[in-house]
């Protein structure tokens, strides 16, 4: 149905037929009110509000350029890490191949039998990535970003020992006779068959072992005779500086969100959060004001959220107003 309203609309848009133009003119000439109203609408419409605020656009453009540089630096770093990982793999396989070829078929058999005890695999996950491993005994391990796992290709009959730097979640196949041992820089976690999470990053002050189900024993590498037994829902925090450990009841859900690509925290200190953000987004965060490190936050993000979204949310949600500046992959947080 052709109404005068849609004709006016099309006139303003600039796509009107001669017949419609005719109808519009007739309508305008019916009364002074029509005329007035038409001119007002036209005025309102063409007042496009387009006095472009150029300074806002230019300021926004500068931010964009910063982000582009930022993204390029982050990308190239990940690439370098991935390439070096591939080279390592390549060198390893080349060495094995060389070994096999030079010693011949028979000696290969001999070496293979011997090497089951000492042939190790290493998996390194760069910042901003995750990985999943299934071991020869069927145990499953999820490796978080910036983490490294060393494990034997085949476990021996006495124990299943692996080494971890970083964070991982474990689902260990039950085997009462052969304990599974996660060795970190300062503590070792001994289990029979269970689900648990271990966070042992080299530059964190604490190592944390959290038990979801089953039973684990934790021992310090220096004093292996002292064992702490964890029950499900308990988390052991080991302070690397003063060699003290403490056991707390925790909500274990918070320790497994990372596997789903979520970043969830409750009353967590800003300093700890900054460390996690650094690992997820491959950035460096510094605090201009030390006191800000102790502010606590509760919240959740998706890991695929843009880092700027996260910084903006921090900026808005804090009781103490904060602000940040970015320079490539360096972020500085200050009091506003």
């Amino acid at each position, binding site marked *: 149905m052709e109404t005068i309203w849609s004709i006016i*609309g099309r006139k303003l848009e600039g796509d009107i037929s001669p017949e419609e133009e005719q109808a519009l003119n007739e309508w305008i000439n019916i009364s002074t009110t029509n005329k007035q109203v038409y001119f007002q609408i036209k005025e309102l419409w063409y007042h496009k509000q387009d006095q472009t605020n150029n300074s806002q656009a230019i300021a926004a453009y500068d931010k*964009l350029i910063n982000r582009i540089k930022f993204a390029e630096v982050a990308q190239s770093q990940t690439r370098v890490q991935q390439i070096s990982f591939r080279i390592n793999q390549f060198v390893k396989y080349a060495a094995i191949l060389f070994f096999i070829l030079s010693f011949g078929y028979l000696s290969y058999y001999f070496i293979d039998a011997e090497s089951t005890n000492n042939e190790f695999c290493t998996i390194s996950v760069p910042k901003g990535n995750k990985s999943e491993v299934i071991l020869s005994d069927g145990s499953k391990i999820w490796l978080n970003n910036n983490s490294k796992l060393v494990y034997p290709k085949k476990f021996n009959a006495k124990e299943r020992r692996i080494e971890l730097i970083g964070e991982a979640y474990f689902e260990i196949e039950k085997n009462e006779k052969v304990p599974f041992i996660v060795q970190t820089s300062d503590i070792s976690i001994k289990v029979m068959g269970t689900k648990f999470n271990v966070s042992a990053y080299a530059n964190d002050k604490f190592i944390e072992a959290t038990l979801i189900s089953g039973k684990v024993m934790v021992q310090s590498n220096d004093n292996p005779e002292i064992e702490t037994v964890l029950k499900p829902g308990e988390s052991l925090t080991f302070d690397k500086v003063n060699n003290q450990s403490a056991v707390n009841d925790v909500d274990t859900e918070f320790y497994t969100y990372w596997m789903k690509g979520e970043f969830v925290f409750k009353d967590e200190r800003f300093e700890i959060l900054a460390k996690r953000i650094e690992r997820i987004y491959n950035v460096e965060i510094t605090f201009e004001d030390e006191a800000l490190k102790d502010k606590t936050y509760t919240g959740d993000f998706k890991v695929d959220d843009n880092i700027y979204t996260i910084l903006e949310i921090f900026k808005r949600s804090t009781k103490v107003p904060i602000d940040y500046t970015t320079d490539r992959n360096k972020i500085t947080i200050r009091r506003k």
Partner: protein
Amino acid sequence: MDNSQHIELLSKKISQNSDQQAFKELYLVYFDRLYKFAFSILHSSEFAEEAVNDVFLNIWQKRSSLKNIESLKNYLFISTKNTSFNYLSKFRKERNTTLDDVLVRFEIDELTPETAFFTAEIRKEIEQAINQLPPKTKLVFQMAKVEGLKYKEIAQILDISVNTIDNHIATAIKKLCVTLKNISPEEINLILFQLFTKLRKKTSTIGQNN
């Protein structure tokens, strides 16, 4: 400058030569309109700016495939719409945001005194009238009026038919007419006076504008 040949040239320079100057020009041509479009959906200047920058970051990173995009202008608006919707979903913790979930607020910009055509009270009444309309109608009206988009372009961006756009605009215009007709005669006289002085000014500067 928003003529399609010029935009095509910029797009070519960006995709073939990674020309940053052309990229900046493209940004400055569209920033204002994309920003206002995002703002009408997000109601936050920071997030509207962020959304526009997300779109342009993506353009820069995928610049080599720019030549496959038929209309860069439509692409920019569609990406801004999608990005803004994603932000909304995130805030509301919902999986998807559709056109029906968007709350659009219509506002007339503050004008400088000499170009002010509508008094503050009339502006307020117009804003109120438009804001009573359904969100979709408001968004379409905003896109046609503020962003200066053609019905065809709006149809592609919002993925609805040109006919529907026509109806939305007609609804908005009707509402405006009714509102303006109800304004008291003294105010109308004032408007008429301003209108004629303005028209005279306009006729005298037309030569320069075109």
